[in-house]
């Protein structure tokens, strides 16, 4: 073998080796760097970012290390709607897949992969199946998409993440806590599906691992000593129709003093539990009204969110909580010793407390001589320390709502923010502050306002203009170079 051949072989094999090594390094680098994946979202809606709450749940799922599989089936082939539905489902699936190593998410074409659908027993387009171990939750099209607006403004909203989020909660349900709803005095019934029932709230809480049960202090005692059950995470009293007997009020106070949280919801002109006096909360006569209202309902002022953990997320997502017929609330000024009160919902500056007077054109008007000027408080929270004399252990939390309808079946699912408000209020009460979040964040499609006519004109601009210009410049260059 001569020297030259040796040199060439050395260089050649070296070059080949380096090329192979380079490819290996690149592949290895990918595997090495993948765990440190960084994702930056530049979209205006941050649509790729999973909500804090979802991320928390993914983290909890990860700790359990039980594999979770999400199978999202495509929507029925159709027009625009199916395109958007599939795209949003796909995006969500992918985002969850990126975000977690224990959750494996997959988008499946329902038409093409019949076998997958059959294996899972899925018969509907657009179904999302979430499996964790033996457990399984199915989400249907109606859980994932909702239409808002009318006519030209009609738009589709995607609630997929919120639904998946709730499904996660259901799947993780192993430490359900009980929230008792006091009954026996005409309160709203947690089991009733009527408009003034609380069944929807019960369902929503169920997905968050709270069980909403009725509590009849006298009857449940069955002749024994009546008391609030030991497993109570919170007690809510929604719109009593008759005054709560002193005995039962004492029981609630005893529960509060042991660190149990309470929620009261009252209505204007309704019964005001006497214990409000102990908290320094007054309910003046009249009804809260506002120029800013949910048209055409004069008794539905649009509440403003004050800075509070319960409403923080709602405010940032600008979701409205619907209320109907609100009693004004007043916290004692100066505050009672050991009691810290915070306003949760209030009217705008244009709100007032209506105390009768004339109606003009069917609408109430602010009349300074009769009415009290706003902003009026519609909901508040109280934190009771030991020096209040009401609490023996830790800190007591109380929420007072000037409206009961907002929690009832009539408004809970109608208002964009009601569900979150209700669930978050409960979470805050029982001290699950870390879990506070908006339960649903819809994402909408950005529409183009294009008429057929516009499209016709546009066609020539977008298809013809560019190529034409390019050809013209080309022809100019070509002709200028000819004959040179």
């Amino acid at each position, binding site marked *: 073998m001569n*020297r*030259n*051949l040796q*040199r060439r072989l050395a260089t050649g094999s070296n070059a080949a080796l380096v090329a192979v090594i380079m490819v290996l390094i690149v592949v290895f680098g990918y595997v090495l760097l993948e765990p440190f994946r960084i994702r930056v979202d530049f979209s205006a809606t941050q649509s790729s970012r999973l909500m804090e709450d979802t991320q928390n749940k993914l983290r909890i799922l990860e700790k359990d290390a039980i594999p979770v599989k999400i199978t999202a089936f495509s929507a029925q082939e159709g027009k625009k709607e199916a395109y958007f539905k599939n795209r949003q489902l796909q995006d969500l699936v992918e985002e969850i897949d990126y975000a977690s190593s224990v959750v494996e998410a997959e988008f499946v074409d329902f038409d093409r992969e019949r076998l997958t659908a059959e294996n899972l027993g899925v018969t509907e387009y657009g179904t999302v199946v979430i499996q964790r171990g033996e457990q399984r939750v199915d989400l249907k099209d109606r859980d994932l998409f909702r239409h808002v607006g009318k006519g030209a403004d009609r738009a589709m909203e995607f609630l997929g993440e919120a639904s998946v989020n709730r499904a996660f909660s259901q799947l993780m349900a192993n430490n359900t806590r009980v929230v008792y709803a006091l009954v026996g005095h005409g309160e709203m019934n947690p089991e009733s599906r009527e408009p003034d029932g609380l069944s929807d709230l019960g369902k929503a809480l169920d997905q968050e691992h709270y069980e909403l049960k009725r509590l009849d202090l006298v009857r449940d005692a069955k002749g024994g000593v009546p008391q609030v059950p030991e497993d109570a995470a919170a007690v809510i009293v929604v719109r009593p129709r008759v005054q709560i007997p002193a005995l039962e009020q004492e029981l609630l106070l005893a529960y509060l003093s042991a660190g149990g949280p309470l929620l009261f919801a009252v209505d204007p002109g309704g019964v005001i539990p006497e214990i409000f006096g102990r908290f320094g909360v007054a309910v003046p006569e009249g009804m809260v009204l506002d120029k800013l209202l949910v048209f055409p309902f004069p008794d539905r002022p649009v509440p403003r969110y004050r800075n509070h953990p319960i409403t923080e997320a709602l405010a940032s997502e600008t979701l409205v909580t619907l209320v109907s017929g609100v009693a004004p609330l007043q916290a004692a000024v100066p505050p009672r010793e050991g009691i810290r009160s915070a306003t949760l919902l209030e009217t705008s500056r244009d709100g007032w407390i209506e105390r009768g007077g004339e109606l003009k054109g069917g609408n109430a008007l602010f009349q300074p001589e009769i009415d009290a000027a706003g902003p009026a408080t519609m909901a508040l929270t109280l934190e009771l320390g030991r020096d209040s004399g009401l609490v023996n252990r830790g800190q007591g939390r109380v929420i007072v709502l000037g409206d009961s309808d907002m929690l009832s079946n009539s408004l809970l699912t109608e208002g964009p923010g009601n569900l979150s408000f209700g669930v978050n209020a409960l979470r805050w009460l029982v001290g699950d502050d870390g879990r506070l979040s908006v339960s649903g964040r819809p994402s909408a499609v950005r529409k183009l306002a294009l008429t057929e006519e516009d499209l016709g004109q546009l066609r020539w601009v977008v298809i013809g203009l560019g190529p034409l210009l390019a050809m013209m410049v080309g022809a100019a260059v070509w002709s200028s170079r000819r004959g*040179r």
Partner: protein
Amino acid sequence: MIDVQHLTKSYGPRLAVDDVSFSIGKGEVVGFLGPNGAGKTTTMRILTGFLPATGGDVKVAGFDVFDEPMQVKRRVGYLPESPPLYPELTVGTYLEFAAELRGFYGKERLKRVGRVMEQVGLVGWEGRVLGSLSKGYRQRVGLAQALVHEPEVLILDEPTSGLDPTQVMGMRELMRELAATRTVILSTHILGEVEAICPRAMLIAGGKLRASGTIAELREQAPGGVWYYLEVAGAQDREVGALAGVQMVEPLGIDGDFAKLRVRAPADPRELLFRAAAAKGWRVRALEQRLPSLEEAFIGIVGREG
């Protein structure tokens, strides 16, 4: 300047260059002579570092072509067989590009392009598109490209092929000028070209170096060698052949009184012949030295060995 030892190049089983060794000193002008497909172009491509050798060592200006190609490339100007032109560019932009490839930028670049255009006679042609140039001008641009960095070594592959006679004359003139200051290797299959420009030539055929030397030396290697033509009356060829200093005499024919003779001698015998003729009363009508043509030498050498 150029040192080639046992250079071999094979394309698969075919040997294009077979154990060629030569060396060329600084300032020499050497012609590579050989029929088409003899291995001239391959040798030149190896010298410029464009092709790798299969075996042997090639050094240009003291740098090994394989180990230090950059050093070699910096010192070599190369005009391939067909000038390496981008047909879409103009003469000016092309030469500026060539200058930049050699590391000249800004004013230095413009200066060099200007000078080289003057050198090859392209002044006023800057704006012409290369694709529309005639063969002669394409060749000039190609040469300009090889000259722009004033290389120590200039390698020209068939610089006059395809040119018309006046263009050939011009090109030869140009090469003669260039040869004055640098080492030049040019390849050709036209013998006259070597004769016109190169003091030294190498004869390559079938991948082998068949002969090398000055033009005179090559001629002597022709089968005929140098001889003298004599027309004489009053003398027998034997008498001429008997003269001291004459090796051999062949009669070529008779023209009246005059005998036509081919005289061979180790040294120039002309003076001697004149004196002998004067002394003996011979009438000499013609006496001249006959050199073999390069063609004869070429065919002789290639034919003899191949």
